[in-house]
């Protein structure tokens, strides 16, 4: 390909040549000749021959990249295929020159736009000797969850004066997964009102809300007065409370709203980002408590992960959360109608949604409550994200905020534990707020 420099020089040479003939000025013609020679020399010895636009025979056609790049190959290795948000991936690119000629190559390994180069560089200018190889190492930081692909490798060769160049894309791709970041939750105050009953129930041996006595401990601020063991107080003179063994394993259902509206706000601060992080944190917390956790992500379709326990289930859930795309506008009622027959009555349900543009929300949550499900709604406020990003003005914000407050009050009136989750609030704080603590 001609560069802008060569195109300009070529045009200048043609004009000077013609002007020289018109003005009978041999100096102009001589300058034009020298420029032409420069261009021809660069085209001849720059490692390609694209100036010969015609006359190329089909059997000699080496593809778009020309001869110079046909002997260059690339391979890539990633340090990990799975990483959490804000984690780092080390990438090693191996470039090989199979030809007998040394080459000056410009190599750019394409990384997704949201990634940040932490160390090293993905854009390299190198002189690669004949039949040599080299390793390029760099580290990327992954700030946002998702499925990502590194590649292709764009290679460019050009003459020393930068007049002609040829490019080739080496289609080497490597995929990796960025899981949503997780927050450490100490206690979520979420419990099942109806213990899950199945044969061979797991003996949990953990303190928590339940009916069986587990142990006695000192009273701390915030403990319920009903749990004070007055006999122990009389004996020891210190306030003591009864701890109970946590009831059998619960089914926890996490519902994540990934409709198109959930991505309203900046890329790194929107309802979907917060919802996926919350769902990941809650899944880890409940699974570590040996509860069984199911996940439903709804956007343009309803994607569900069936309830299960264990570490494997956590990775299944994290993978689904990493791939959650803001698309479609499936109403919550559709989700409720679909899952209601399949979940145990009384199971805690945690919905993460910004509650916007869904007229079925009130009815859907009423259906849950009518069947005595313990419903918690964490609602990251898209309004706050938009307002913080200064995309809506104050009047509009106040009006919409009032509408949102009315909706939240209505849901609260139905017995839904709901929290208007502000952007700077920790998940544990939001959960505590939702449960009224």
């Amino acid at each position, binding site marked *: 390909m001609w560069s802008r420099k060569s195109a300009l020089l070529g045009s200048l040479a043609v004009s000077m040549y013609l002007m020289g003939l018109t003005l009978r000025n041999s100096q102009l013609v*001589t300058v034009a*000749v020298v420029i032409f020679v420069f261009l021809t*020399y660069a085209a001849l010895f720059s490692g390609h021959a694209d100036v*010969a636009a015609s006359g190329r025979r089909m059997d000699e056609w080496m593809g778009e990249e020309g001869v110079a790049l046909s002997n260059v190959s690339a391979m890539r290795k990633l340090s990990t295929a799975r990483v959490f948000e804000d984690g780092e991936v080390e990438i090693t690119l191996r470039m090989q020159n199979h030809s007998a000629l040394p080459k000056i190559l410009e190599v750019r390994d394409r990384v997704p736009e949201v990634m940040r180069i932490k160390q090293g*560089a993905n854009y390299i200018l190198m002189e690669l000797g004949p039949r040599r190889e080299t390793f390029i190492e760099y580290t990327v930081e992954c700030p946002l969850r998702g499925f990502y692909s590194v590649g292709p490798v764009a290679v460019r060769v050009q003459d*020393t004066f930068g007049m002609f160049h040829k490019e080739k894309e080496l289609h080497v791709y490597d995929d990796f997964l960025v899981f949503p970041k997780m927050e450490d939750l100490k206690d979520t105050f979420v419990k099942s009102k109806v213990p899950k009953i199945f044969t061979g129930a797991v003996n949990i041996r953990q303190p928590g809300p339940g009916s069986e006595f587990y142990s006695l401990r000192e009273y701390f601020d915030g403990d319920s007065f009903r749990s004070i063991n007055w006999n122990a107080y009389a004996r020891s003179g210190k306030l003591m409370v009864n701890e109970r063994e946590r009831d059998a394993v619960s089914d926890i259902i996490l519902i994540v709203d990934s409709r198109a509206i959930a991505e309203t706000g900046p890329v790194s601060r929107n309802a979907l980002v917060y919802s996926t992080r919350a769902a990941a944190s809650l899944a880890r917390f409940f699974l570590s408590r040996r509860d069984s956790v199911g996940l439903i992500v709804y956007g343009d379709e309803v994607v569900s992960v069936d309830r299960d326990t264990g570490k494997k289930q956590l990775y299944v859930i994290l993978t689904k959360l990493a791939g959650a795309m803001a698309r479609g506008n499936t109403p919550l009622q559709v989700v409720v109608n679909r899952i209601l027959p399949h979940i145990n009555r009384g199971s805690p349900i945690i919905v993460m949604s910004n509650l916007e543009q869904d007229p079925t929300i009130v009815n859907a949550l009423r259906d849950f409550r009518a069947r005595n499900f313990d419903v918690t709604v964490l609602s990251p406020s898209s309004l*706050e994200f938009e307002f913080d990003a*200064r995309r809506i003005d104050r009047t509009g914000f106040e009006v919409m905020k009032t509408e949102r407050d009315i909706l939240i009050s209505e849901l609260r009136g139905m017995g839904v534990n709901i929290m208007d989750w502000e952007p700077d609030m920790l998940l544990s704080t939001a959960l505590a707020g939702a449960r009224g603590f």
Partner: protein
Amino acid sequence: MAAAPPPMARKQSRSDTSHLYDGKVVRSAAPSRKKAAGKMKSGTEVPDDAVPEVHIPGFIEALLGGPVVPKHKFLPADRMVQTLQLGAYAMLISLGVITWIVTPPQGTFWFWIFGSVGGATLLQSMVILSATGTGFWGTMSRDPRWLLASYFLFILAAMRFASSKVALSNDWFDLQQNPWLETALIVIYAVLLVMYFELTNGVIRFSMLDTSIRTNEVYVMNVKRIISKYHRSLMINPAIAGALAASVLSINTIIPAVVNLFSSETAVRMEESVELISVYGVAMGSLFVFLMVGLMFAVNLPLRMQKWRENRNT
């Protein structure tokens, strides 16, 4: 039995509830929201910064695929760039002097306008001086706009209606008595002009590269070998271009020499022919050269050469 309240608490008035908040963090709203709300206007117009800045390229930019003159901010020049700058200064001085010699005021636009040699000489000298000055400033400040102005002025100085024969403004070395030296001077002038274009362009290119390296945007392996290749090209390319240009300018000698093999009388007539000595002879020479080059490309010589070089010793 409940303990009696401390005396301090009794003294507090009933309306003072600050003690309820001791040791607690009270949140009313996200700090950023409050801060933003204080700054926001109450109007409903879309804030300026909410609209992303989109640069719409003009016609020329769209044609060229980018800005005509890129406005880069470079870091201080490194050794390589400084060397190129020194080379460009040397080239500029030589080019200024030779341009002044090979472009006499006769035949220039200002000679045609003023009709006097004095005024035309003054203006021609000023154009060449300005070309040199802007070139100096452009190279020193690494600003392509000044360099473009310098290129334009040098070309403007060469734009003159010349007679068939080469004329010199000052023939200090009695070159007009020796046509070979005269031809050499014109070739040197042409090569210097093109080398000046290339060197100053190199200053900008390598400044960009150096800035990219130092800001970690690009990593360069084997910098010395890349630079040495560039230096080598700076030697070889002008030598070849000069030799070819000299052969083009010597067409009035080469063609009669070839014809002399068949007919000496015709060869003598050709040597004295005005057409071959004039610019049309040069044009014919260049036509021959480029027919040869065209032939090389037509038989796919570059591709064949490249394939041969690539697969050598395999």
